């Protein structure tokens, strides 16, 4: 190979590199100078724990998107929801009900995988010694739900199942524990006859450490529903949306990514689109009376 040929090849490579750099600099989604992206996480955990668990993801996204990503926590669901309504979050993770309600302004791009599953179901638990074997027996009984009325898996889905069984909302006495896990513990402690929670509640270590789960049984379990959604503003540029989606989905592919997911108590993040949440919409409509 002659010196002339080497010089031509080097010049060509330099030209390609320059072109790529100019292209990158021209892309608005990936430019750091476009301002920080706000990552909102619904207050499933308290603010401290949320920060601890999700800061690695925020840092990861910042690294991948070349834009500053700021994690914004909320002290409660009200303030979080206000942030949704005020569209303060560029990227947000919340529950299925939240997404259904904010679907006009936010677009789902991914969903959580927990315990290796992309889906989960709602369930109603009773004590084995309660004598309740049918949903209809819950009429007039106290049912302790986890979270509040906007809790998809631990309220809307169990309520949907009771409605489907022919019960009416006012025929049961609804109580709300701060978390679905606490609702299960409440039933165990005989403070209610049934608890609304996720189908994997009894398998969770936190519950197994707190109570004797053998004393409980699932009275009813719903169909499998896609896990919690990740959404971006509908105004998010496509490239950025796709970059975010890719970044999240790709976490599962590397060791570092899996560690980040593990910190957030997740086993992976998969792609999702709006129609994946239609089953959820049906249940929400039935429980809340038709509005999304």
């Amino acid at each position, binding site marked *: 190979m002659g010196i002339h040929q080497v010089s031509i090849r080097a010049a060509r490579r330099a030209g390609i590199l320059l072109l790529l750099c100019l292209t990158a600099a021209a892309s608005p989604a990936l430019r750091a100078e476009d301002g920080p992206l706000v990552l909102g996480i619904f207050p499933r955990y308290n603010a401290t724990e949320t920060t601890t668990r999700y800061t690695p993801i925020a840092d990861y996204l910042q690294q991948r998107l070349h834009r500053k990503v700021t994690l914004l926590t909320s002290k409660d669901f009200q303030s979080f929801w206000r942030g949704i309504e005020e569209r303060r979050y560029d990227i947000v993770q919340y529950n299925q009900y939240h997404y259904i309600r904010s679907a006009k302004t936010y677009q789902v791009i991914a969903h959580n995988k927990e315990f290796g599953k992309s889906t989960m179901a709602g369930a109603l638990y009773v004590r084995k010694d309660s004598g309740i074997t049918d949903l209809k027996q819950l009429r007039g009984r106290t049912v302790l739900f986890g979270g509040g009325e906007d809790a998809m898996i631990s309220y809307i889905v169990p309520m949907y199942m009771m409605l489907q069984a022919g019960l009416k909302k006012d025929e049961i006495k609804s*109580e*709300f524990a*701060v978390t679905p896990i*606490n609702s299960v513990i409440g039933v165990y*402690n005989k*403070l209610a006859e049934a608890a609304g929670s996720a189908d994997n509640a009894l398998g969770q270590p936190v519950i197994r450490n*707190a109570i*004797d789960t053998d004393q409980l049984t699932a009275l009813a379990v719903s169909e499998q529903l896609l896990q919690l959604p990740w959404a971006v503003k509908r105004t998010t540029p496509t490239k950025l949306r796709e970059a975010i989606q890719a970044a999240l989905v790709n976490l599962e592919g590397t060791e570092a990514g899996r560690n980040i997911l593990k910190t957030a108590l997740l086993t992976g993040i998969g792609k999702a689109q709006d129609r994946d949440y239609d089953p959820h919409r049906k249940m929400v409509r039935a429980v809340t009376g038709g509005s999304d």
Partner: protein
Amino acid sequence: MRLGLSAKFTITVLVILLCTMAANTLYFLGTSTRLHEQQLLERGRALGRLVSLISPEAILGFDFLLLNDYTREVCSQPDVAYGAILTPQGVPISHHVDTSDPYIRKRARQGGSVEITELIKKREGVEDLIRLDFPITHNNVLLGHFLVGISRESMQSQLQRQVVIQAVVTSAIVLFLSAAIYGAFRFNVLFPIRRLISASREVGRGRFTAVEVKTADELGQLAQAFNAMAQEVKEEQAKLHRQANFDVLTGLPNRMMAFDRINLEIHRARRTGQRFAVLFIDLDNFKSVNDTLGHAFGDELLAAIGARLQESLREADTVARLGGDEFLILVPDVVGEVEVEKIAERLLQSVSEPRDLNGRKVVIHCSVGIAIYPDNGENVETLMANADNAMYQAKALQEGSAIFFTEEMNVRLRERMQMEQDLNVAIELGQLALHFQPIVDTAGPRHRGAEALIRWHRPEKGLVSPADFIPLAEATGQIVGIGDWVLEQACRCWRGWHDAGLNPGFLAINVSRIQFRKRFSRRLAELMTAYRIPAHALEFEITESVLLDDHHQVAEELASLRALGVKLALDDFGTGYSSLSYLKRFRFDVLKIDRSFVAGLPRNPDDVSLVKAILAMAKGLDLRVLAEGVEHHAQLDFLAAQGCDFAQGYLIARPMSEDAYRAFLKERQTKGDASNLTFIHHARTNTGRGTV
């Protein structure tokens, strides 16, 4: 078991320390228990208040996990056995137990599911638990109860550990303090006391060692006092030793020391086979010196003689004063009797040398008795006795002489002792008898009375002369009993004769100086009363030797006799001191001229002059005179011519027995004085004259 001072002290200290430390430990443990209990309560209350304060929100929110966190956190606190949150109905909604709690661990090991309420109830049944119950309220609405159980187990185990530690520490302190106190006691008290004990034992053994005084405290003062006492004891012992072994007056060894020296010499002589001599020295008539020149003078004389004796002897010889005027000389390493004889002569000469004492020239002699070891005795007692015996023989033989002991002396001594023993029972056995020798006027053969004379009929020995046994009786003190017997017999006889209608006249009775000292007048008064004897019927003859004794006592006794009305006669006048001062000082009725002056009458011009002088003096002093020992008519005629009042002797009548004298009196009364005073009276022959 005898406990020493140190053991007693140590036990006392140990007991005190143990009691003190035990009381202190108990107090500490009691206080500590109360404090711990208080702390547990405070901690339980603090936990309870906190949980009851923060729990309402979690209860209202059914946040059981948070409640679990609370109860778990509570249980993670030390000493918390369990924490439980119950509904008002008593349903537990959150609880946690301390799995390290022994009771709960035991229940856990037993297996099976136990309701928490049941477990708590059973756990509360165990005494070591403090159960606290805090209501959980919100807006005055009871939401539940928070139960917390505080275990005393760790407190108790901690207290047990503390007890063990405290016991170990206490024991260590007690031991250390005891050891320290014992050490201090031993060093500061015991050692000085032991030194004192050791020194006391040394003093007891006669070795005087001063105790070192190291401190100024009480023990130091005790040591000082002990030293002072030991010094005083030492001096006193030396003084006692001197007093016990040396004569205070002469500074010479005394009898005891003399005995020791002779003993030592005996031991030495036994080893060496040598001989030694013991010389007994008694000053002749030393009593007269004392009596005439006073005891102080006598003492000076004794001291001077002691010194003179010491000067006359070798250093190896021992001069000792045995007492009174007796000295002993121990002469070791004697070769022959000639050597001893020379020494004795030197001593006699030395003692006899005239000496000036208080301006008076004094000449005194001594008698020496010599005993040789082993010829005259092999022990101290024998040697001393034999030397003493020899000395008496020398004195008896010739005053101012020295005599070696012989076995014959012992024979005589034994005889004397036998006589002394026989004399003891002579009165009881009726061996003594009174004889009476008539006394008449010299002017005409008129009977006046008689002198009572004692006789001793000794079985197998015959009649013993008073000259033989009276001195012995005086020397042994038997004279008192004998004299009393004589007095009573005389009174009895006189009363008998008088009651028989006879006229016995007066009875002259001799009184010994020994007898005179024993309140003679009192006994006489008793007998005069008992036998109704008139005073004129008795006359007492005393010798000048009686007057030599204590003048005051003699004067008193003579005055008492005179108060009784009896007559007093001075016996043997002219043989002794014949002191005119006695005649002046003591009033006598009669002077008795000794037979030795009468014997030479009327041919011996000296006796004639002397008798004339006595008679003249008696006339001048208005005294009656009695001459004894009149045996010839010439003597009687001379005496009558010279104005002598009374006569007594063989010429007139020999001494006669009581019965004979009774017959004599009866005959005289019947036939008149002339009938039996023909100077050839039939009285029995007698070998001597009575002196009692």
